[in-house]
């Protein structure tokens, strides 16, 4: 457990389900109250759908694990109601250095693109994000979290899923219509259903530690290839809130887990890096090997896999947690529509169609970064050396240096839910892409476009015509009427036309002009209808 964080212990409460003579039935049960399961539960609660979250633990993430929260996650967190807390606590950074040996190869400054509410990414420990999600879930008061409830068996039936749950008071059974498996990389649900988790495991070990250190070192990401303080591997130093610094040290394939985890062996490594007289305390540490694997399908009848239970990646590029957050953003509204009867069951199929390509992209990027950092063969090593040789003096070569390509949101290019665009496609956003933010003014008040989307279907009317339209049965935001595009950035990013936005802020369709019938058809299509 991270020492710098004040963990709250969430109480185990006996549920009346444990006293029932026959298993109690719930519409939706979420296995795993980690980052992704909690985000899903909050999203469902916002839709007024109570879910039961069961978690085998009673505290948030043991270590800081995920530290890099990408812009798209922050936008989703805004919708879920924890965006401000994350950004207030988190560290926004733009600068970094890449070193080779002890020698600076180059420095970079990722100047943020103007006109977005949220930065490209912040650093914030996973336990903070999870604790904000628990608070938000409790505040909404819809649904229930059951701590110290461990799922030990899962059986899929035609019209329900049956679970056995172990508690301090012994086991009990429940059933549900939909089971969300958010139980992490070792997913008990995945094992119970005996589903293969296909992909690659990398050989190298990485020692990941957080240290608490008062230091006036700048807030920048430092990455070393083969530093002299750490023979034969790469090293990373990155800052988190509360004066916590993340250190990754690559240890190679033969590291002895037990030995390497001894404080007496970690300390000299850290002192070599931070200085012999550096004053710090170890806050948390773990030794990892990484994998890039996924399930062949994320939907198995009534069981839906999200987050690390569905797919796992090495952390280079921060795509694990960020990818999982996008999973639930994609899934929650669909399940809500199925549960309230506004969409057929088949809508849930589109979760696979949209999130599997996204997982593959994350896996591809994470694999490439891991291969660059820990070359698996002579060719990889040769080209990496060549890239590093050139990078100091030739800016072009820096583009090849790969210590993680940071998570960007996926565009659901071939989504079965999208309607082909009949507007001028040379500008604006194609169907399937996430909405882009822009600063706007509403009733004289400065605000952001994305703060107005989400949770429901809505229309963004970018056409500067004065026409009155037939009521399309959903909220219409018209540029020039409801939204003032004071900085011209909405037009820059969206061009013209009418956008049909999904509840997850992705574009479902774009039309050149307003046609209520076409809009209704596109909405039906986006709800899985034909």
């Amino acid at each position, binding site marked *: 457990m991270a020492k710098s964080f004040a963990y709250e212990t969430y109480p185990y409460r006996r549920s009346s389900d444990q006293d029932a003579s026959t298993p109690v039935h719930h519409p939706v049960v979420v296995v795993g109250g980690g980052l992704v399961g909690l985000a899903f539960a909050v999203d469902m609660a916002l839709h007024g759908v109570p879910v039961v979250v069961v978690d085998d633990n009673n505290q948030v993430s043991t270590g800081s694990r995920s530290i890099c929260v990408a812009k798209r996650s922050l936008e989703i967190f805004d919708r879920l109601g924890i965006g401000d807390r994350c950004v207030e606590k988190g560290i926004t950074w733009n600068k970094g250095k890449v070193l080779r040996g002890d020698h600076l190869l180059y420095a970079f400054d990722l100047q943020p693109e103007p006109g977005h509410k949220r930065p490209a990414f912040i650093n914030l420990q996973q336990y903070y994000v999870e604790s904000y999600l628990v608070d938000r879930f409790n505040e909404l008061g819809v649904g229930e979290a059951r701590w110290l409830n461990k799922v030990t068996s899962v059986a899929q039936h035609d019209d329900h899923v049956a679970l056995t749950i172990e508690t301090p008071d012994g086991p009990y059974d429940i059933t549900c219509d939909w089971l969300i498996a958010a139980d992490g990389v070792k997913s008990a649900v995945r094992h119970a259903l005996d589903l293969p988790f296909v992909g690659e495991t990398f050989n190298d070990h990485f020692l990941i530690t957080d240290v608490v250190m008062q230091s006036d070192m700048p807030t920048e990401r430092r990455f070393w290839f083969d530093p002299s303080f750490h023979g034969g591997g790469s090293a990373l130093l990155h800052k988190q809130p509360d004066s916590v610094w993340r250190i990754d040290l690559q240890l190679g394939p033969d590291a002895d887990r037990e030995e390497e985890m001894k404080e007496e062996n970690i300390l000299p490594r850290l002192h070599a890096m931070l200085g012999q007289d550096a004053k710090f305390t170890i806050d948390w540490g773990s030794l990892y090997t990484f994998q890039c694997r996924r399930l062949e399908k994320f939907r198995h009848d009534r069981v839906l896999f999200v987050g690390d239970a569905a797919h796992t990646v090495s952390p280079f590029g921060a795509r694990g947690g960020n990818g999982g957050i996008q999973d639930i953003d994609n899934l929650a509204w669909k399940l809500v529509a199925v549960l309230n009867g506004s969409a057929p069951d088949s809508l849930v199929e589109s979760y696979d169609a949209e999130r599997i390509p996204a997982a593959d992209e994350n896996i591809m990027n994470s694999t490439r970064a891991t291969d660059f950092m820990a070359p698996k063969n002579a060719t990889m090593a*040769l*080209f990496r*050396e*060549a890239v590093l*040789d*050139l990078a100091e003096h*030739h800016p*072009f*070569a820096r583009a*090849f240096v790969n210590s993680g390509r940071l998570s960007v949101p996926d565009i659901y290019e071939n989504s079965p839910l999208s309607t082909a665009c009949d507007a001028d496609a040379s500008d604006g956003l194609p169907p399937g892409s996430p909405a882009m933010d822009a600063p706007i003014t509403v009733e004289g008040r400065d605000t952001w476009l994305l703060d107005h989307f989400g949770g429901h279907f809505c229309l963004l009317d970018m056409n500067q015509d004065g026409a009155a339209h037939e009521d399309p049965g959903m909220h219409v935001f018209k540029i020039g009427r409801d939204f003032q595009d004071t900085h011209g950035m909405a037009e820059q990013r969206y061009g013209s036309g009418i956008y049909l936005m999904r509840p997850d802020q992705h574009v479902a369709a774009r039309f050149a002009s307003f046609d209520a019938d076409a809009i209704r058809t596109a909405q039906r299509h986006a709800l899985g209808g034909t």
Partner: protein
Amino acid sequence: MAGLKTTPNLNRTDDVYQALIDAQEVLSPADAERFRARLILLLANQVGDDEAVQEAIASAAEGLENADGS
């Protein structure tokens, strides 16, 4: 873009060929390999056309067998 050029595109072809040989002859096999990797990267960037570079990669691989015989 136009894709990979396969017709002569240099003026002093023999000089370029000789320079390639000369630069590597003085190197150890390991350094020569490193030299070639650097050169490939420099030239790929110079080409500035992703498609042409991909075609060149495919062209260079033509007729060579996979090491595992597949």
